[in-house]
């Protein structure tokens, strides 16, 4: 809110207070996520400012010890598996739902979004109960399946958004020109909705990579992911290695989601799509 050309005293005070309050809120938002970054480069073992010195010893712990390395490997495996399945199936579903004649659209959409609303502990405990019966507990496949349920809504929503700008006549033109549906999907539709698909994939990756509750219930000791290692570490003993792991995870999510949002934003401006 800016001052009007001829501000009254009351207006000055109101707007001054608004700026002050918002400045404090911004500090409240940003300081907590920035704090772990300098602490992770601390050479001492405490969380106290001023830092004792700059070092990368905690990154060496996270990237160099076997426990963390296997956790990072597990996280990447699960996240890539989830991304692959959620993106493929989510894109197919979004295309199907974009057709107004899809039967029961109004029922299917809330059902698809329900994994975002159901408290995650219920999903985790339910998966643990069912997967143990069918032999999927303590398997990578089980964790990937459960993560796919949590991640696919993001893909459906982002791809559906990019499809609202897609001109369906292009598909008819491709069909008239003799292209089979699969070919016209890869040659015509996919290139145009690719930003939406990739941004959905990034959301899916981050959802899986950051997830800890389902993993806590489903993973065996040698399937611990990076967030689960962090969770266990936070419960047991607070070590600066956790701030290094937190910084790495935060960096990865922010980079991926910045890319996802730039893609979405550019996707809305592409030629051949109706904004």
């Amino acid at each position, binding site marked *: 809110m800016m001052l009007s050309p001829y501000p009254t005293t*009351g*207006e000055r005070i109101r707007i001054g207070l*608004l*700026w002050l*309050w*918002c400045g404090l*809120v*911004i500090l409240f*938002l*940003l*300081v*907590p*996520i920035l*704090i*772990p970054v300098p*602490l992770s480069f601390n050479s001492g073992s405490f*969380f106290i400012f001023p830092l004792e010195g700059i070092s990368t010893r905690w990154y060496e712990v996270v990237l160099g010890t076997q426990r963390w390395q296997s956790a990072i490997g597990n996280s990447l495996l699960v996240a890539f598996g989830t991304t692959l399945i959620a993106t493929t*199936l989510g894109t197919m*579903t979004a295309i*199907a739902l974009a*057709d107004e*004649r*899809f*039967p029961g659209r109004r029922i299917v959409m*809330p*059902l*698809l*979004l*329900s*994994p*975002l*609303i*159901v*408290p*995650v*502990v*219920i*999903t985790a*405990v*339910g*998966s*643990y*109960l*069912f997967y143990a019966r069918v032999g999927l507990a303590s398997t990578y496949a089980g964790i990937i399946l459960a993560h796919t349920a949590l991640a*696919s809504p993001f893909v459906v929503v982002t791809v559906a958004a990019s499809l609202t700008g897609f001109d369906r006549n292009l598909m008819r033109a491709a069909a008239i020109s003799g292209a089979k549906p699969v070919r016209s999907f890869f040659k015509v539709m996919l290139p145009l909705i690719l930003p939406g698909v990739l941004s959905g994939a990034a959301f899916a990756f*981050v959802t899986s990579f*950051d997830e*800890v509750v389902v993993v806590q*219930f489903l993973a065996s000791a040698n399937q611990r992911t990076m967030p689960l290692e*962090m*969770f266990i570490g*936070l*419960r047991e003993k*607070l070590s600066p290695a956790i701030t290094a792991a937190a910084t790495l*995870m935060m960096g990865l*999510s*922010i980079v991926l*989601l*910045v890319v996802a*949002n730039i893609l979405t934003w550019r996707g809305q401006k592409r030629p051949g799509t109706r904004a």
Partner: protein
Amino acid sequence: MTAIPPSELDRPALARGRSAADTDLRSVSAAIRRAEFGDRLRSLALAAPLLVLLALSFGIPIVLLLSRAVYDPTIANALPQTSQALSGWSGSGLPDDAAFLALAADLKDNQAKGTAYELAKSLNARLPGARSQVLKTVRQLEGAGDKPPLEVVKSVPFWSQPGTWPAIANGTHAVTSFYLLSALDLRWNADGSIERVPPEQAIFLQVFMRTFFVAAAVTLATLLLGFPLAYLIASAPKGLAAILIVAVLLPFWTSILVRTAAWTVLLQKFGLVNDMLLWLGVVDDRLDLMYSRIGLIIAMTHIQLPFTLLPIYSVMRTIPPSQMKAAYSLGGRPFTAFRRIYLPQVFPGVMAGCLLTFILCLGYYITPALIGGASDQLISNFIGNYVNVELNWEMAAALSFILLVFTLALFGIFARILGLDRLKLV
């Protein structure tokens, strides 16, 4: 259907008149329907893989879990003869000797099959203290020698106490309301009506109230912090607005676990928050913020702030600033103009943001587990604890059932009055 001018039609066809055209139309619309049916099938087939996968990986697990809240066949399976003997029992006083004999026989069978402990545990969930009594009776039956089983059972006073047999009779019904009632601190009393459990046994209502209180406090705090900032962003020039929005999105994109970890660092006794409070002179002594209710609310407010702010901002963005100017020029004082012109229009956004935050807060698990103390654990933590520590699936299922009912009811209100589109953030 292509229209054919009447002049080109021959006379007999014209004589056939409307009926021919009708047949034509009908066959064309049938063809269209057939084609559309094919399209529908194709789009269903396209959506089917994800729907099937979600049903398997998400739907069935949740239904299975919830069914555990109302279906518990352990006691019925373990005590078949007792169930039989109790079928004619009036429910008051003690059952006849046949029931005692049947119980003795069932207990022996369980010991032989190795299921005695499971039975003891299951009965214990309904009747505190039953575990040791069942195991004791089983041991005595085994070492009884010539002593008649009836006498052995009757010699254990537990089996002649007033509450014991109603609980067993209740347990022989596989479909039960016991756990759902327990989750609300209720139970059936002897004369068949529902009553509150005695205060010393009541736990869950307090936990639900605590969860609602924390959710409400966090919702209010995010609104107080988020509304002015949303207003500032919506009315700031483009470049500044972009910077401010990034400041909101950066924490939004960081995982809950990472933000919780950051707060555990900040809230330490010698952490930054205490340093600042001391420096500002707000407190004289360092506060214990970790493992406290206030620390939990602060951290949850930080995590939820973007969820409340973004829907409010997306509505504020659509309100032209000229409206407020018009209100001022018509003599409206700033507060009146804000209350009568601005607020009614942003209200749907405020509702969406607050409901979303409230719903999400009900399901918090990680943050209370790491930052809350023993008396700050929310309902999700109790569910996790019943599975991980107590191994009482029925109670975990019943608490999940109630939590899910609250969550879905609120989500239903959300979808009904605001529409699902409001769920899209940014």
